[in-house]
Each structure stands twice: as C-alpha cells, then as structure tokens.
C-alpha cells in the first residue's frame, strides 16, 4: 500500500524527464529497468550529487520496479554516492598497482591535510575523500579522479598544489 502523502517533493525537471524517456525508449518494451544505471547518474547530477532513499524510491516508481532493485544496484557501484558528499569528491585508487607506487601515502596525506578519513567530508563541505578500486590507469599511479578528470603520477607536492587550486577556485 503506497502512502500518497510522502510523494510530490522529488521530481525530475521536465527536460530531464524527456531525456530519461528517450533513454528508456532505447530498450525493448518491458525492459525499462535496463536504463537504471544511466538514470542513476542523471539523478545524482540533478539532486545534489548523491542518491537519497527518497530519490531512489522515486526512480523505482518512475521505472515501475521495486525500490530494492534500485538500492541493490546503487549500492554496488562506488560511482553512486549514497550519502551527501562535498562539492569535490576525491576518488583515490587504492588497488594493488597504485598501492605499490605510493597510493597509501597519498591517502594518508589527504587525511592529514584535510582532517578527514575515507568516506568523510570536510566540515566546510568542500571535499569528500573516497578510496576506490582500479580506475584503469595502472601505468600512471598513484592517481585520483575528480569528476571526469584524472590526476596521475601524484606526488605530495602535486597533491598539495591540486588541493590549493581547487580551494582557491571555489572561494
């Protein structure tokens, strides 16, 4: 039984709805669930860079699937944030090859500089630190990803510089 009162707050913009419907139409009828990954990205973009339970329930309703079918997918991929994140998400690779060339040192340095642990966000809401599995840039480690950009062959200096640039840009 659906309680009708909890709805109405979350809604895609009309142009987003059009885009989503276009994506859904690329899949055979009745297989609209296949569009889920792309819709989750769009939703994350539209609703503050993370997926709340309410947003995921909304998507489930939108796709006419069970909410749990959204949760299980969203929780599987590290690209989806299930908690609020900072403006900038530092996704540092901590898979074997990167660790061999110093990824753990980079992570430790970020922890100390920003005073946060992996999964946490700075108190000013600027940075979130995430450790992620292989980003496919093993030859260029240690590395991290911010949005769609890769930052490779990191050193302490490069890292400090990067953090400063971001801070200044956002001030």
């Amino acid at each position, binding site marked *: *039984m659906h*309680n009708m009162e909890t709805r109405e707050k979350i809604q895609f913009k009309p142009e987003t709805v059009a885009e989503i419907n276009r994506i859904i139409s690329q899949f055979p009828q009745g297989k609209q669930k296949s569009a889920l990954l792309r819709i989750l990205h769009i939703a994350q973009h539209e609703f503050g860079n993370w997926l709340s*339970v309410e947003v995921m329930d909304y998507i489930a309703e939108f796709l006419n699937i069970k909410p749990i079918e959204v*949760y*299980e997918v969203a929780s*599987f991929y590290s690209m989806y944030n299930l908690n609020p994140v900072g403006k900038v998400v530092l996704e540092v690779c901590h898979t074997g090859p990167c660790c061999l060339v110093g990824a753990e040192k980079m992570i430790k340095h970020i922890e100390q500089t920003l005073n946060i642990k992996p999964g946490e966000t700075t108190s000013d809401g600027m940075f979130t630190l995430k450790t992620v599995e292989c980003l496919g840039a093993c030859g260029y480690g240690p590395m991290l990803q911010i949005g769609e950009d890769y930052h490779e062959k990191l050193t302490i200096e490069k890292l400090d510089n990067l953090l400063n640039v971001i801070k200044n840009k956002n001030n």
Partner: protein
Amino acid sequence: MIKTAFINNIPFNFSEGEMILSFVRKYFEKDYIPTLCDAQNLEPFGSCRVCTVEVALQKNGNTKTVASCHTPVIEGSYIYTHSEKVNKIRKNIVELVLTDHPLDCLTCEVNNNCELQTVAAKVGIRDVRYPEGKNHFDRKKDLSHPFMTSDLAKCINCFRCIRACDEVQGEMVLSMAGRGFDSQIIKSNNNNFFESDCVSCGACAQACPTSAISDVFESKSVIYDKKVRTVCTYCGVGCNLDVAVSNGNVKSIQAPYDAEVNNGHTCIKGRFAFTFYNHPDRLKTPLIRKNGELTPATWDEAYDFIAEKINEIKSKYGPDYISGISSARCTNEENYFMQKLFRAVIGTNNIDSCARVCHSPTATGMQRTFGTGAATNSIDEINNTDLILVTGANPTNAHPVTGAKLKQFAMKKPMIVIDPRKTELARYAKYHLQLKPGTNVAVLNMMLYYIVEEGLEDIEFIKNRTEGYDEFKNHILNQNINELEKISGVNKELVKQAAIAYAKAEKAMSFHGLGVTEHLQGTYSVMLLSDLAMITGNIGKKGVGVNPLRGQNNVQGAADMGCQPHQGAGYLDFTKPEIHNLYEEFYGVKLSQKIGYKIPEMFEAMVEGKLKAMILMGEDVVQTDPNSNFVIEALSKLELLVVNEIFMTETAKMAHVILPASSFLEKSGTFTNGERRIQRVNAVVDPIEGTKPDGQIVIDIINKLGYKQADYNPETALEEISKIVPFFAGVKWNELGINGKQWPVMPDGSDTKILHKETFKRGKGKFQTATWHESPEITENKKDFPYILTTNRELEHYNSGTMTRRTNISQIVPDDVLLINPVDAKKHFIAEGDMVCVMSVRGKIDVKAHITDEVEPGILSSTFHFPLVKMNVLTSEISDTEALCPEYKVVSVNIRKSKGVYQNV
C-alpha cells in the same frame, strides 16, 4: 531420444537440457555432491561453487572444473564427482567460507541441522588455515519482528533467502547490497524486518542453510520429539504443514517440499499463526446459560439440556423449527455428521454452511452451465497456461500461496485482472479493468461482446460441446456497449484488448473470488465467466477452466458433504423420489423432502418466529454475516442457541449452551481444498483438556437424541461417506497418501485432475445470458449515501480474526482500516490514521483511515477482522438473487471525519 553420459565412468541416461547436479542426484543420494547455494525449490544459481565437478569430453581426457548445478550435461561426457582435484576445491571453498563464519556451532540455533556444518563435515575441514582477518562477527541480531529473525553474522552470502523472496514469494524484500567484503543482505531499504515490506511468509528462513535468517519458533532447530504432517486450517489453498511437536506442545511449523499443493512454501498464517491453539482464552468447559449467566457445566448436563430442549421444540413446533449452520473450518467427516444430525436425527433439511456467504453463487452458476460447481482444473496448471484472468479476487492476500504463484505468472506472462481495487496482482497485470463495484456483469458482457464481434469464438468447441449458443449470441450482440462502458467505468478499448487477448491465448485459465460471488448478480457473473471459457474452448484440458478460489480450508468439503438445505451429501437432489428413497434406505429412517432454509432465510425466519432453535458449529455469524444488528435481533429470538466454539466469539456470547471444541491441530479427518483435493488432517497434539473435536460433539448429540452412531473416527466415517457420496467412491483413509486425492475418486482409487474432459457433467455445456442490474442498495440509497464501500481481506488476518488475533500477528496488523482515495480524503479533511465515521442506512461505525490510490475516488474498502470495529453493522442483507449469497461487496455509505474512537451505534 535417450542420451548417455558417464558418472565416475559408469554410463547413465539423461534428458536434454538437464543440469549435471540433477542428473547425478537422479542416480545417487541427494547429498552425493555437496552444495550450499542450491535449494530444491529454487532455480540453479552457481554462486557457492561447492558443487564443482570435473568434466572430460572423453575417457581420461582433459578435464575442466564446472559448477554442476547450472552446467548442462553433454552427451558422452565423463563427469568426475569426487576426484582429488574436486575434493580439494570443495574443501578450499568451505574453508574460505569459514574464515567469516562464527564457529560457535554448539550454541547455535540450528546445531545439528545446519547445511554448512554438514558440508564442512562432509568435505573434511579440520582447520582453517588463514590467519584471523576482518570479519562480520559483530553484526547485530535483528529481533525486531514478531516472527522473523536474522543473525547476519552467520550469513554466507549464498543468496538463497533473496532467491526465495524473489522466486517463491515474489516479494523482493531481500537483496544484496554493496560488493566484495561489504556485501550484505538488506531488507527493503536496509531496514530491520519489522520496518521492511516483509510479508512474513518465512520462505527465506526455510531457505537459509544456516541460522542467518530464522524465526522466533526456531523452526530449523532439532528441538522436537516428532514432526506430524497435516493440512493448514486457514484458506482453501490447503497447504501441507510439517508440525514439530516438543513435550506435547506445538513448537514450530515448516512447509514440506514434497507437498504438491505448496511445494515447500506457505504464508504467515500457515507458518506462524498457530499459537492461538493453547491461548488462555480457549474455552475448556461446556457452559449453560442459567438466569442469564453462562455457567460451567459437565458435558452430560450440556447434552441433556440440548436434547431436552430440541425434543421439546420438535414436539411443540415440529422439526422444521430447528436449524443448523455447519463449519467450513471443520473436517469433511464432521460436516457429514452435522448434516446427518439434522436430516436423519432431527428430521429437517434446515442445514447450511458458510459456503452460502462465499461461493454458493459459484456452485449454482457452474451447476447451470457445466453441471458441477467445483473448480474445473488444478492450481499447478498455472505452469501450463498462456494467459490468466483473475476476477474479483485478491489472492496475494487471501490465498497467499496460490497468489504468489499467480504473481510469478504475471511477471512473465499476460494477466487480466478485473477488480475495483488496485490489488497487488493488478499492479503486475497487463490489463487491469478497474470497474465500479457491482458491475461485473457489465464488464463480462462487454468482453463476450468483443469476442463475438471479432469472430474469435471456438466454433468447433461450441458446436460439439455446448448448447444454447444462438440465443446467447443474439443476446450478447444486443448489448449496448457504450452504456455498459458508462456503467462499469472501464474504457471499452481496454476491455476489447483484454477480451481479444483472452480469446486468442492458446490456453487461458480463469480464477475468481468473492468479488464475483458476493453480489446481487453473483450467480450471473459466474455463468458469464463459464460462458467466456466455453466460447473460447477453454475447458476440459490442461491449463484452462473456471476455478473458484475457495475461501475456507474446507468450504468445498462442507458443501460436498451436504451441508446445504437443497441437496444432500454428494449434491444429490432429495426432492427426486429415487434419491429420497436412497437416502432413507441409507440412513435407515424417514427423511423430510422439504427444502430447508438458507442462512439469510434462517435469520428472517427467526424474526418471524418460524425458527426456534439453532446449532452453530464454529461460525461467528454476528461478526461475519451482513447487517449485524439484524443478526443479533434474530438470534435473540431463539429458544435454544447452541454454539460449538474454540473461543468466546460475539455469537457465542449470545448462546444458551456453549460446547468447547478442539482446533485443527488436535483432531484428524480430511479437508478438501479449492481444487477438489481431499487431504488428510492428522492430529498433531491431544485435544486441549476439556475440549472435544466437533465431530465427537455432534455424534454425542446424535446419540443423546436416540440415533446410534459410533464414536468419531475419520477412517470409519470416510467408509460411510464413500458409500453415499458418488465422487468419494474410492476414498479410503489409508490410501490418501501424503498429497491426497482429487475428486471424483473412482471406486478403484484413481482420482481426477481435470473435469469435463470429454463431456460436461450435465452433458452439454449450457450458455447462459445475463443482463446487468443495479443493486437496490445503490438505487435506493445513493442520494444520501454516495460512496460505495466494498469489503476485502488482509493477508495477516483470517476472516473474523478469532484465531489470528490471538497470535502475535496482532503486532503487525492491529486494526481494521478504511482504504480511501487521497481525493476523497482531502474533500473530508481526513488525514492518514484519522478516525472516520462511516454511515450506511443500517448503522454507523468508526474506523481508522488509510489513504491510498488502491481505491478509486468514490470507492472505499475495509475488512472485518476486528469485532471492535463492527464493519458488518454497515453491510446489507441484499443477496444474490439465485443463491442468496449476501452482497458484502457493495454498500452505499457516507463518511465524515470523526472525533470519537469506536463509538459504535
């Protein structure tokens, strides 16, 4: 074509597409190849890899290791099930599993019945070589739910619970979140069980190989003295139950996998709602009303009181001033003796049963079209059909195990749902015809019209097997479709599409429930459903037919045994002289040929002074029959009201004599489920002290009244029944086996899965016509009472709730609620949980609101599980014109927000 493959170098035959694991299991013992993620009622999954085997394409050739559960057998291949390599792989896998599983077996709930423990023993783990690393031992137990428990520290990520939730129940409450080390089972949005959408079917607990998911009764523990197989007492599905008994008390219930009816599944009621049986409220001594008070008495005092009163009323007024209502919750044998008491001992045909208030229109309607009222096919034929039509039924709530099967079907194949509410099935169905309550005849006529108009009839079938088609066709083509569209509120294009889909399906199966029968035109709707089946040739073969979802566990049986006023045991018409003679000879006494009162007529007769006594076997008419105030008035006029009951019901409170009966767990006999399957009910525990099985009580009264009848014994009772009920001819207690037999059972003991195969019971199938009429309830009351209230059921409770309210189910569903559309709620300033005053021309009640789009604007729906709410104060005494089944489904009401709480008038 027979194909061969080798298991450990010995050739065996396999069938095309067979998986290696099931191939091996066919020839070796079940646990020959150890498994963890495999379960017998689930699809192969291939997650644990413990079932790994080596396969070579030729003898001594190169081998490949594969998971046997989901790898098909290749012809001529060599399968090695216990090679050195395989044994090593299995051992390594289990060893890895054990690195993250607490080794506290001795104190574990499932000690000695744990699949992980067994497999570990079998592969020979002696040591876990890996140093202690991160683990999940600190996960907290979830004890939030009254029935379900979880202890995910014990979880081995085999996915069996998730698959049971998806594949068996179709609820999709459980899933795996995260990945790698973070993987964990979630319940809805990572809630605990209580806050999740769990429907407490217990399938996950039964599927779990460890104690990671279990139930509060510890049904997987080995703490029991014996397990007794019996049949569930709740709905007409007839689930088989394995009841564990410890120290003479029922400990827990599981669903046997070898049960044809429920294949290892059952629902919250079957699995968990048994604790009522030794509830302190159980009646334990006969009670006689003295000076207005019910006072304890001995059995003999009670029987003497009854016999004296019956004899007095009989000699003063005549036997037709005495009546009885039998119980669809009791066994066939008990029902048989109940009707025998009235017919052969008291001498009247005033005997009816609650089949009257549920599926009597089905019996009447299908007798007129086919010749017999029973379901034409079997439930498991859901697997053999192409399209299913569900009319006026909400099986995921009322018949959960069949409902779950239908839901699985609807996820894969087309389903048509005709229902005023957006039921769970309607949400999955391809076509949902959301009609106004009381317009089934209109919608079914529209469907028939389009089938004829589109020329989709099965001409051959109509010509060979039926009669009356020309007249029928003429009638159907004269329907005014536009008007019917307006009446029903269902878009005619949608009806057309659904009709075409039904007619074009290779095989279409129809199910219906009380949403068809409990109407002014119930019988007519049933006849139109029969017409739909006949016009499309969907009768007499596998995967088709018209199948009423019978409400109560033995409502089929109560009618079969003759607990109805116009037909004797076996549906024989006693107004015919030869039948009358047959019965007289059989019972050895003079019998009445006068047709007796149907239940609604009984109440009217009481008010008119034409009925003075009533014996009720386990039926709470005050709470469950419509227009409660009228029922109370009628019962209060009686000189003798005897009630056999297990609890003090609203009706029992009015009795002159109460006889404490035993519950289904305490007696033996047979129940006949909705697919005509006669199954053995086996006493699990002794009767609670002070109680007797209803059958024994009835036989005691029979003897007290001077007729000789041996004590209650299902074996000898069945022997007697098989001699008079034609379709029970070959039924023998000792030959029913674990899965029972579907009637008609021939003298040689063979049974019948599908009816009307070559010819109909009545010879030719008869097309019947119907014209829609508005119920007088609406025409007379719609001005002052503009809303239509319809009644429904909740999954968690059963009927008047007498039993289920006395279990922890009350913690899950504590109240009746009124379903109301947001539009209507807004109009009356009603918020979720507010009390609403609902008024009909007969009275008013207060009930809690639940705002939902499950009902359309203008339509309300509620249940009558709770006596406090008194929903049936509102319902009307209008009945089906043919079978007198009350119209519970259409009540004209008005609503307003109320301040009061349960101020019933």
